[in-house]
């Protein structure tokens, strides 16, 4: 055999093997694509469904699973051949550790993204754990600003953070107080002592004096607390014009009921992210304690037919349409849109798609999403007030359904 022949055959061989390899790779690849079509898209849905925050957690899970059912019923993720969402439901047990453990499990199970967390403290640690695995994490509620200021590339918050909420709340408080002829000058803050309540109290303490309010006292309490007698005694002694509570559902209800019981009636109860202040559950169960309470909180877009339809569906299930429900509903839709555009369950691609999201199919009054460093720029709270047996939006004017009643009329 001559050298030439050998070379030729080697070239031939190389050429044919290269072709063959491509073909084989193609063949191997084809079933992979076929498999992906219709295969489920695994996502983690994390909420504190047991423990002190279980009510909120269960409401959050309700919103998330309704959105997942809606996405699946309307044909799944079309870019992935109609792949359906396969949720892995996690229970953070109302603790940051519990949240971490669930994210670890979700990562091991191969989810492509996680939605939820609810409480700030849980969101902070769960998103950090997710970041270790480059796992996209959509925060449903958690409002502490450091959730999105730690430079984590995987973490996105659909709703507003403290900074925006506190500013809106204070602007609106000044507006309401000015309209009423400035009856309120002194304030007492009652807050729970974890990341959410303590952070908010700090912000309010820094900003209220600049707006002409004097903070008489700031009282912190743990979650859970089952007795507010001494807190209310202190309120009674200081007799502030305004009481600002910042705590979770159970404690909020208890505080309001104890104030009613001890006949403590300031000129207004103005909560910032009050755990119960704009909850239909609270208004229905304790209408007298809830009357005239104002709140600056997450609220759905009352002019959006999709939101009203969702409200009806939730109420038809015998559940209350609380903010946890529509925040989670929207967060899941946001993720579905991102996976649709990423056309992949690859974590990095989903993260990229979330970062460039301009999603407007949600039920919140935010406009299309636009993330800067993980924070949705359009996210903002509204002001509500309990009037009669309903919760009315009192500010901003374009969504308002009633005028604020302030100061509270005497009992």
């Amino acid at each position, binding site marked *: 055999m001559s050298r030439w022949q050998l070379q030729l055959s080697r070239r031939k061989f190389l050429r044919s093997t290269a072709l063959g390899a491509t073909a084989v790779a193609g063949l191997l690849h084809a079933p992979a694509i076929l498999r992906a079509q219709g295969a489920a898209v695994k996502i983690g849905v994390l909420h504190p469904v047991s423990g002190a925050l279980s009510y909120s957690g269960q409401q959050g899970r309700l919103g998330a699973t309704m959105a997942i059912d809606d996405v699946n019923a309307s044909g799944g993720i079309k870019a992935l051949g109609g792949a359906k969402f396969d949720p892995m439901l996690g229970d953070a047990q109302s603790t940051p550790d519990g949240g971490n453990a669930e994210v670890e499990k979700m990562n091991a199970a191969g989810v492509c993204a996680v939605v939820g967390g609810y409480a700030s403290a849980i969101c902070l640690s769960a998103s950090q754990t997710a970041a270790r695995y480059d796992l996209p994490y959509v925060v449903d509620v958690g409002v502490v600003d450091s959730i999105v200021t730690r430079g984590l590339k995987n973490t996105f918050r659909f709703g507003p953070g403290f900074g925006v909420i506190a500013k809106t709340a204070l602007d609106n408080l000044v507006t309401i107080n000015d309209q009423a002829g400035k009856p309120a000058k002194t304030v007492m803050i009652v807050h729970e002592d974890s990341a959410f309540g303590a952070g908010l109290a700090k912000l309010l303490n820094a900003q209220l004096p600049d707006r002409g309010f004097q903070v008489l006292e700031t009282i*912190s309490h743990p979650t859970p607390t089952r007795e507010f007698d001494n807190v209310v005694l202190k309120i009674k002694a200081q007799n502030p014009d305004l009481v600002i509570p910042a705590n979770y559902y159970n404690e909020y209800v208890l505080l309001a009921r104890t104030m009613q019981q001890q006949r403590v009636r300031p000129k207004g109860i103005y909560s910032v992210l009050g755990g119960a202040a704009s909850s239909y559950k609270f208004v229905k169960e304790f209408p007298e304690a809830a009357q005239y309470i104002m709140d600056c909180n997450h609220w759905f877009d009352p002019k959006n037919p999709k939101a009203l339809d969702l409200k009806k569906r939730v109420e038809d299930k015998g559940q209350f349409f609380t903010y946890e429900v529509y925040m989670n509903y929207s967060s899941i839709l946001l993720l579905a849109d991102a996976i649709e555009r990423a056309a992949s369950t690859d974590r990095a691609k989903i993260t990229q798609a979330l970062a460039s999201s301009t999603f407007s199919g949600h039920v919140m009054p935010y406009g299309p999403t636009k993330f800067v460093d993980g924070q949705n720029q359009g996210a903002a709270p509204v002001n509500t007030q309990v009037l009669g047996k309903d919760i009315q939006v009192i500010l901003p004017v374009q969504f308002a359904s009633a005028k604020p009643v302030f100061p509270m009329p005497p009992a």
Partner: protein
Amino acid sequence: MLSPVILIPAVLNGLMAGAVYALVALGLTLIYGVLHIINFAHGALLTAAMFAAFFAFTLLGVDPYLAAFLLGPLFFAIGYALQRFIIGPAAHGEDRNFLLVTLGLAIVIENALLYFFRADTRTINLPYAFDVIEIGPAFVAMPRIIAFGAVIAVAAALWTIMRWTDTGKAIRAVAKEKLGAELCGINVAHIYAITFGLGTACVAVAACLLIPTYYVNPTAGEAFVLIAFTIVVLGGMGSIAGALIGGLCVGVVESFSSIFLGESLGQIGIFIMFIVVLLARPSGLFGARP
């Protein structure tokens, strides 16, 4: 801050809360006084009783105050059986073993509750839980007044049993001189079990008084037992009057420290008092001098 508008309600709230602490401490001190053991399962039994009261209300619709009359005897029987058939035989009369057995029992009970009912915090809503009675400048919540009255009644009943009945005399005899009592024909194992049952019944009544205004989860009892230990040390180990007065003191101290130091730090006052008592009067207010 020190106006009567604050002081009087704070003292009243403290006394009412302290009464329930006292009842938990009564059970603990009784068991200590007779068996000379510290019952580490006390908190777990309290939690179990709170769950029982919770489910009696939610499933059977039994008002917690009525449930006390059912759960008291039931938990007396449970306590009797625990001591007679588990703790007593397992401890072989060694103090050290009593500690370990009750500690083990606590772990088993707590984890069984956790397994069956999960970590959820549960509460009940009674229609009259927010009714108030005016006492001077204070509006005192109805459940607290009921609890206060009930604790005084239970303490009086306990005192009567100890003072006037044969069983009470036997319990006191065993507490003072076990061997002597045995020689006089007293069945010590039976008396031990009765005492343990009485202590457990106290806890069951306390649970029924707590549940209208408190929450229950598998670790809810722990908070009370830590306080109860303080009360037992404060009042003097084994003293019924000491437990009652110690409990009321602790309630008032807690009420004031939560007003002046804040709700999150409310219990600091109790434990400062605990340390001070240990330093200044190690035998407690009513305890026998060593």
